[in-house]
């Protein structure tokens, strides 16, 4: 995890310097929003998660003992806010690609789009915790030790959660592909 946050800014904001806090959150918001969006897969929900996180940063910053841990701490906050939002919205899950969509005969560029839609749909079938760990691993690029630190769980749990998340995602994709193949045969 590369440290991109100015330690002095964190210390000033922790002491109550609002200007330092403004600079700090503007530096961090893009990074946090990107993570939130990739977990919740919705722009508006990601905005909610980001706002909750930034407010928590202001309220809890004095309790952050080590300013060098700011980045990891904010990853923990955004993951918690995003998974909470994702769990609440799970009942309203939407399907981006209709079940009867025929992507087999589409030109290549459309096939690529369809593959991405399949991936989107499969990803949304994962639990919030599974999405979060895949985002931290494949998007943020944290090591397993860093993920354990950010999520506050043992290394072994990180490994098993990654394993099951990947397996569930692959299974969901394969199920969709089998469904499409079956429709091709019937056609």
């Amino acid at each position: 995890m590369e440290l991109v946050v100015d330690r002095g800014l964190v210390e000033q904001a922790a002491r109550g310097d609002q200007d330092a806090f403004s600079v700090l959150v503007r530096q961090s918001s893009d990074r946090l929003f990107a993570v939130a969006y990739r977990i919740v897969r919705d722009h508006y929900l990601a905005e909610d998660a980001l706002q909750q996180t930034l407010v928590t940063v202001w309220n809890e910053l004095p309790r952050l003992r080590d300013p060098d841990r700011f980045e990891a701490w904010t990853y923990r906050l955004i993951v918690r806010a995003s998974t909470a939002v994702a769990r609440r919205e799970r009942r309203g899950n939407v399907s981006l690609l209709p079940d009867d969509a025929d992507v087999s005969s589409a030109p290549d560029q459309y096939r690529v789009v369809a593959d991405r839609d399949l991936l989107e749909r499969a990803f949304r079938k994962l639990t919030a915790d599974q999405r979060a760990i895949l985002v931290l691993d494949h998007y943020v690029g944290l090591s397993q030790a860093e993920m354990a630190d950010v999520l506050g769980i043992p290394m072994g749990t990180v490994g098993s959660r990654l394993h099951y998340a990947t397996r569930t995602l692959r299974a969901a994709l394969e199920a969709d592909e089998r469904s499409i193949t079956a429709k091709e045969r019937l056609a």
Partner: protein
Amino acid sequence: MTARDEFDRVLGEWLAEGPTRAPDWPVDRAIAHARTHPRRPDPLGFLRTPAFPARVGAFNPRPALLFAAALLLALAGTALVVGSRPQQTPVIVPPASVSPLPSATPTASPTARELGPAHVNLKLAAGEPASVDVFYDGVLQARSGQPGDGVSAAEDEILVANDGPNTLVLTWSGMPCETTYRLEVSPNGRDYRLERPTCSGDTIAFDRVLILTFDAPVPASQVSTKVQRAGTTSQP
């Protein structure tokens, strides 16, 4: 390239797509929140639970300070016992805003477990007034903590931390429409089952913080929690 590598590559590329720039309004609102909530001096801040664990090997003065404070208290207590032999044990008086438990004093009846709930009005950052009924007779004091404006706990999760060996701080998130909670504590003080009301409404959740002080040490690491919706059945 193996199929696994290919899968990882496709997933990584797909995740890399999408927005990387945050909109302004959440940032502006957070800054406005900071301006309307200036930080007050907190002389005891160094004793509070850290928001995030320090790096391994980093010096943390809190345990040493707590140990020193406990040692001083123990010495002072010993001096009192040796010097005057007080006949009465100290009584912990709950704050006026909290309905006290009927009694935490040991009684002659070993079956007197169910003494009725402690009713605690929860302090909230926003939303409707909320309260929790705590069912356990070993609690000396039950009171609300002051939550922040954000959400610390995931849905259906209770964060548990010690604020002293005998005191637990329970934090969970709830929507504004959730106004009545029921917390059942197992006789050994280790298992907690929170029943939350079923409701629908605003999607913005806020923290609820409950502080329980027991008559014996309760390590947070040995506590298990469970959250369930009212009307559902589950074994504790």
